[in-house]
């Protein structure tokens, strides 16, 4: 059976210029999966437009067949796959059913056809698809493409896929060559490929060659992985920093544990969503720049809500931190439910603008997404802005004064009540900014804030109150530590270990990394 198909394939290869025949179309569309795959591989090297159209149609599930004909369906009408002429669809026509194996073969076939596309981008995409499942059956095509390819990067990629295919070859010399050339690559896919071959390989010489190649790849991948962990850690840390900065202000200044902080972030995220929708509706051309307006909008919305909260609820609870904690928890419930009533309980879609999607490939297994990079930069900017505000402006001076000694500041003529409102609005606004940033990397939903609230409190507890530096170190430290442990023990255990670590750390330094020095007996 197999020999027969190989013979067929050889025959087809021997006569390259032949167009798709009705018999081939039939063999492609009907019969056992095995014979259809053989027919597919036979058609491929000489595929003309008609054959490509048929394969594409099969991949799209738009082919029917009867006992005598194969029909490509398009917009509800039937066409003959060979001539392209419109034909009537008989009542008895059945759909061509593709199982998973057939489907992946069809995709691979389409990809290998695209290898000869004049567009370099299409070729690069195609070789990526093919790299996933190398099988020797497409080797002739790949050889042809390798010889024809002019762009060096794509030629390299094709060379790797070719080597991957050769790795399964029956010829020992070819396997040795393949192992050697694969060692130059640094992609995780190649590593799995080599590992799989290692299991099946019996020849010691080839095994040794594969081992060498594996060692080289692993060395290269390890760096990518390490840097990747540090990058995701810094990325998480920058988000935590954004979340905790606002908390540090509200808690540092007023001793208010704001449990609704997460919900203020949520408001910021929803403000971003609203701005996005407005841009889409009224100025689609400027959609890429909606984020620029969303940043002040999310700050404003959250700051406004924060100011209202301070004036209406929190004002009455100063000096009673435990009660504030409960009241703000109540506020968080109300805000969550309000958002559910207005926007629905489902998550809402927030789209990245074009310039924030994609990423820069720093290494073969390390891609730095633009949106994460943007958030890190954004966090740095917000941090710089807040520290400038606190250190250099009149408002900042008042805020510091009230934080250090409320009564004395009041005696000096500072309107402490107003400063409280401003500071709380500022902290809330920064929470809104954090929400705007989060909307670019995660889901926006009514419980967006809940996921971060425990973590951000940990940052504040660890960093200590009263100094931004503590918050910064704690946020970045926790972010990186979390991701390091995650790689080692998995996400849940990592989180638990971090919490245990914090509890132990608090034992040693109950006031956090940077504590305000004071003479209180309670310190």
């Amino acid at each position, binding site marked *: 059976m197999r020999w027969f198909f190989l013979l067929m394939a050889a025959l087809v290869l021997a006569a390259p210029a032949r167009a798709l025949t009705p018999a081939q179309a039939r063999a492609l569309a009907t019969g056992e999966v095995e014979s259809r795959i053989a027919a597919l591989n036979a058609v491929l090297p000489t595929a003309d437009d008609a054959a490509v159209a048929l394969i594409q149609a099969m991949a799209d599930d738009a082919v029917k067949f009867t006992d005598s004909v194969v029909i490509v369906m398009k917009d509800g009408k039937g066409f003959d796959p060979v001539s392209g002429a419109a034909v009537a669809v008989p009542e008895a026509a059945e759909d061509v059913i593709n199982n998973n194996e057939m489907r992946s073969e069809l995709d691979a076939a389409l990809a290998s056809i695209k290898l000869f596309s004049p567009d370099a981008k299409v070729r690069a995409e195609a070789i990526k698809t093919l790299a996933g499942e190398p099988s020797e059956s497409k080797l002739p095509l790949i050889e042809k493409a390798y010889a024809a390819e002019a762009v060096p990067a794509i030629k390299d990629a094709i060379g790797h896929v070719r080597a991957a295919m050769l790795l399964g070859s029956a010829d020992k010399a070819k396997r040795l060559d393949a192992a050697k050339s694969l060692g130059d690559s640094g992609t995780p896919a190649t590593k799995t490929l080599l590992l799989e071959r290692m299991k099946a390989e019996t020849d010691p010489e080839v095994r040794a060659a594969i081992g060498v190649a594996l060692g080289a790849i692993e060395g290269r991948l390890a760096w990518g992985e390490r840097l990747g962990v540090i990058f995701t850690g810094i990325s998480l840390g920058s988000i935590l920093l954004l979340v905790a900065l606002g908390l540090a202000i509200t808690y540092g200044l*007023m001793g208010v544990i704001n449990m609704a902080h997460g919900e203020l972030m949520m408001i910021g995220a929803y403000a971003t969503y609203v701005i996005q929708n407005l841009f889409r509706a009224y100025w689609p051309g400027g959609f890429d720049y909606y984020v620029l307006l969303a940043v002040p909008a999310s700050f404003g919305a959250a700051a406004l809500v924060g100011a209202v909260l301070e004036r209406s609820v929190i004002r*009455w609870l100063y*000096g*009673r931190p435990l*009660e504030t904690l409960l009241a703000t928890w109540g506020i968080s419930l109300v805000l969550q439910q309000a958002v559910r*009533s207005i926007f629905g309980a489902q998550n809402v879609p927030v789209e990245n603008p074009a310039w924030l999607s994609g990423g820069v490939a720093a290494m073969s297994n390390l891609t730095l997404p633009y949106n994460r990079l943007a958030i890190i930069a954004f966090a740095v900017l917000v941090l710089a802005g807040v520290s400038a505000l606190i250190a250099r402006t009149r408002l900042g001076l008042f805020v510091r004064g009230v934080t250090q000694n409320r009564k004395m500041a009041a005696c000096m003529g500072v309107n402490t009540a107003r400063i409280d409102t401003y500071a709380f609005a500022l902290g809330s606004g920064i929470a809104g900014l954090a929400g705007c940033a989060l909307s670019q990397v995660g889901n926006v939903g009514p419980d967006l804030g809940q996921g971060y609230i425990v973590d951000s409190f940990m940052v504040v507890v660890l960093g200590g109150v009263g100094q931004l530096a503590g918050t910064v170190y704690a946020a970045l430290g926790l972010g990186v530590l979390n991701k390091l442990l995650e790689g080692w023990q998995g996400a849940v255990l990592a989180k638990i270990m971090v919490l*245990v670590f914090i509890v132990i750390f608090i034992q040693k330094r*109950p006031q956090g990394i940077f504590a305000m020095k004071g003479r209180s*007996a309670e310190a």
Partner: protein
Amino acid sequence: MSAVPASIPTAALPSADEGVAPRPVPPVQTRSAAGAHAPRLLSVRSWGAVLLALVVVAIGVPLLNLAVPAGSAFHASDYAVQLVAKIMCYAICALAMDLIWGYTGILSLGHGVFFALGGYSMGMYLMRQIGRDGQYRMDMPDFMVFLNWKTFPWHWAVSDSFIAQMALVVLAPGLLAFVFGYFAFRSRIKGVYFSIITQAMTYAAMLLFFRNETGFGGNNGFTDFKRILGIPIATPSMRMTLFVITGCTLIGFFVLARWLVSSKFGRVLQAIRDAESRVMFTGYDPIRYKLAIWVISAVMCGVAGALYVPQIGIINPGEMSPAASIEIAIWAAVGGRGTLIGPIIGAFFVNGAKSWFTQAFPEFWLYFLGALFIAVTIFLPRGIIGLLRRNKKESAS
């Protein structure tokens, strides 16, 4: 009321220890208690009320539920009995919360974890009692069969012994509370810091119990119980027995709490609440007192959890979510902390409202609960009890 004033000055409620701006602490009004006669546990009237509650729970409700026919206006429906049983479990939690928060000034946002630990200890026993009646007809609980486990993990070693598991109901939460409390109190973590850390504790425990590998059934937890001590669990008489046990436990804990807070031990606790440093400088060691009441409170919650599980028929890690723990605090606050009857009233009020709201207006329940949190903290710092007392005083004057 009793010779011991259960109320405390409003201004003294928030401990000055926690505030950013320390305020002068008003003198602690304990003179009446330090009088010549030894304080009685309860006044005659209160003893009468306790006795009446016992009669209602142990005789009244069983009669109304089992003996009165279902059509009668006096019939207590199974639904109502189960609801009241559930709320009584919650009331025990609120009482425990009141001991630690209302009387000692330590707000725990992690009491859900003790409740759940007690519940899980009971649940393990109930899971073993299912025997071969599970979906898979195997000796192991279904979730273990599903995970393809062949032997019980180490913490299930004594799970088929009722007595051992009942000991665990007390020991598991007690031990966790002891270890956690020892380290937290020793390094003088207090105020909101302590609250936040307890919240982190329950959050971490929830994450841990969500994992299948932990051996507690993952996010499904334990459910589908069949029998307890070999007796089928879903029969009316079994349900009634559990109800009576729960009610008696609640009343017993109330009297115990009364005894605790009116003893010298309790007075030191209240002193710690009002001015911890003064207590320390007077020569007491606040850590011991705080640790003792913390462990007692945790164990009470554990017992409540153990009573809750067989009646409600399910325990899962959701009980450890930070939101569940914070709700316990609001029960105590709504009823009136610093009193013992307050938290019980609060638990009944809030949970009664919850079961009504979630049926009548499900979308408004969170608005109501949120508003309750805000209103109670701003307008009713002493809860419903405070409101009742004020009205009484006003009408008297």
